[in-house]
């Protein structure tokens, strides 16, 4: 039987509730967003007692469906002031699903200021226990301590950044080797955990009954189609580019297209791109031997396995993982081409509990402000360490790019709704810009990845520099993504699903197989739109409207080399995304 775990941090209670009928066909993002919509007052303070933090594994998570170990975390975002869903791939997602946990809702906050608790869940129930001795630890130490104390368990945790309520604090989960490295990074949900006094969740899934599947035959048929598609597509197949080079294989392609944001979004090409590209990362990992690896999976049962483990020159493990967004944010966006320094910056983010994207965009803004110079790797390392120390400068940086820009009077701040932009330049890739501007999440590339047709020639082809037809494209991608983020599948499965129709069918069949629903592939966009409309409705009640669906002003007037184009998508086009939904 599936159930909802309701944790009240004021009362110190952990209750198991029946799943209401209205939530029965929801999972992942659809469920976290629905619960936030139903239970969180839109105008509440994100760090106050009335916000909640909600965890929900996806619909097929915990089953044998391939690449489906995702968990969503939701709440009102301290970074954007709107609704937020961030998700991660982790065995913790699979464990919760197998235990029958449909969602965990954490509400209230401890009566005594500064108190922190650990939520422990196992087959017999759940309890809160004091976690004061774990507060202030870096997350690598936290992970070691949890393993010593509780043995073979999974965890969700907030780091020193979240304990200090910093808006760029992410929620960290373990990978399959117990590293604190899998992040629901965006939007500051780690700070919401911190504000609830919830240090972490420790999950012992031994004896778990597994996920109930309504129609096992349909599920199996769908699973086979999906596995075939993933094994066939050049991007997702074993030995394909994601598997061989990792996501940072994108560095070179965005650089060639003139859309790799460089030195705080002042250029679309980085002269040091080759030194931090996926090909180079894979080459160095192979050359150094030792503990480095490519083709690492973030959770068991992933076919794609796009992650990696970076080793120091002596072969000892440094950090997992060097992925495109992190390498870009802390590399090209800061003018840093030393890949070992980028690895160290990622390690600091993992240890402190920071979103690597927001951290890199913020460092770029700090460099723009003159705090340190572009390309100053040691300066960046020192500055990022301030977040864990809790110095006044650490507090400023720790609240992200928009806050840092305001503190230092910077006008070139690449953010929408207060959230720093990911690794695609809107002036060189117009459609992804529409997703950044109009997403319910603030600037977010995963919310509607039009990069696929615009840059990668996956799922069709579109001219990245042209704004024509991009509102419709972004809307369809945003809706499909909302569905995928609810299913529990990794968004990367869509590279195969967009090109191979039987794969898309298989995906929907596995979802129907688990739920007993009869959705068709046409329903994907419809169901996705419903999720988006609800999120939009929360945002409007929170005070976010059309005026917030706009690019940062500098992108309207500052031409971006090498194409020297500005962001010329008209406001009316941006308004069409939700206006015509």
């Amino acid at each position: 039987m599936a159930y909802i775990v309701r944790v009240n941090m004021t009362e110190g209670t952990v209750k198991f509730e029946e799943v209401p009928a209205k939530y029965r066909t929801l999972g992942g993002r659809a469920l976290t967003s629905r619960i936030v919509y139903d239970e969180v007052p839109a105008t509440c303070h994100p760090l106050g007692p009335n916000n909640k933090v909600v965890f929900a594994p996806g619909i097929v998570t915990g089953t044998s469906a391939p690449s489906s170990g995702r968990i969503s975390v939701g709440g009102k975002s301290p970074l954007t002031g709107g609704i937020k869903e961030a998700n991660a791939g982790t065995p913790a997602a699979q464990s919760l699903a197998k235990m029958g946990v449909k969602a965990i809702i954490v509400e209230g906050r401890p009566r005594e200021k500064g108190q922190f608790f650990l939520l422990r869940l196992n087959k017999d129930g759940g309890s809160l226990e004091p976690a004061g001795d774990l507060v202030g630890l870096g997350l690598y130490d936290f992970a070691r301590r949890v393993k010593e104390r509780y043995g073979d368990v999974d965890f969700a945790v907030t780091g020193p950044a979240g304990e200090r309520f910093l808006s760029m604090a992410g929620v960290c989960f373990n990978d399959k080797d117990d590293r604190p490295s899998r992040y629901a990074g965006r939007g500051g949900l780690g700070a919401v955990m911190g504000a609830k006094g919830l240090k972490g969740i420790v999950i012992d899934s031994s004896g778990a009954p597994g996920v109930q599947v309504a129609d096992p035959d349909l599920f199996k048929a769908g699973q086979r189609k999906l596995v075939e598609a993933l094994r066939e597509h050049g991007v997702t197949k074993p030995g394909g580019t994601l598997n061989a080079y990792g996501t940072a294989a994108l560095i070179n392609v965005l650089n060639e297209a003139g859309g790799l944001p460089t030195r705080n979004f002042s250029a679309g090409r980085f002269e040091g791109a080759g030194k931090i590209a996926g090909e180079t990362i894979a080459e160095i990992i192979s050359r150094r031997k030792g503990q480095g690896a490519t083709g690492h999976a973030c959770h068991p049962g992933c076919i794609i396995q796009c992650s990696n483990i970076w080793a120091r020159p002596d072969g000892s493990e440094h950090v997992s993982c060097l992925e495109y967004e992190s390498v870009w944010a802390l590399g090209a966006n800061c003018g840093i081409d030393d890949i070992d320094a980028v690895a160290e910056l990622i390690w600091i983010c993992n240890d402190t509990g920071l979103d690597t994207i927001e951290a890199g965009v913020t460092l770029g803004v700090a460099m723009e402000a003159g705090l340190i110079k572009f390309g100053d790797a040691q300066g960046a390392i020192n500055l990022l360490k301030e977040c864990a120390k809790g110095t006044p400068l650490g507090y400023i940086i720790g609240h992200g790019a928009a806050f840092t820009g305001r503190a230092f009077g910077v006008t070139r701040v690449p953010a929408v709704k207060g959230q720093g932009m990911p690794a695609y330049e809107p002036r060189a890739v117009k459609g992804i810009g529409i997703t950044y501007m109009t997403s319910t999440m603030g600037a977010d590339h995963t919310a509607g990845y039009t990069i696929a047709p615009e840059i990668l020639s996956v799922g069709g082809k579109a001219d990245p520099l042209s704004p024509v037809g991009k509102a419709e494209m972004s809307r369809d991608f945003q809706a499909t993504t909302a569905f995928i983020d609810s299913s529990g599948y990794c968004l990367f499965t869509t590279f195969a699903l967009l090109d191979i129709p039987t794969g898309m069918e298989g995906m929907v069949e596995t979802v129907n197989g688990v739920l007993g629903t009869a959705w068709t592939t046409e329903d994907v966009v419809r169901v996705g739109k419903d999720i988006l409309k609800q999120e939009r409705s929360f945002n409007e009640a929170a005070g976010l409207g059309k005026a917030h669906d706009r690019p940062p002003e500098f992108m309207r007037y500052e031409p971006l080399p090498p194409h020297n184009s500005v962001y010329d998508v008209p406001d009316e086009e941006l308004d069409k995304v939700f206006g015509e939904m």
Partner: protein
Amino acid sequence: MSTLKVDVRLYATLSKYSPAGGESRSFTMEVERGTTLAQLYEILRIPPGEIKQAFINGRRVEEDYVLQDKDEIGVFPPVAGG
């Protein structure tokens, strides 16, 4: 002048077709005027099935594109990420 020079960069799994050999992905080569991108692939002996797309001077082009002097060409197998 019947020839022109172009800069070529072969990325990811295509780097093994670089005439410079080994890990060098970037090289300059001379081709006859009028050479198309598809013909360049033939000269380099890259099996067509391994190529997904190419960017020339920052713009994605099709295989019938006729090469110009000093073109900067980046050729890719299927890649993705996010």
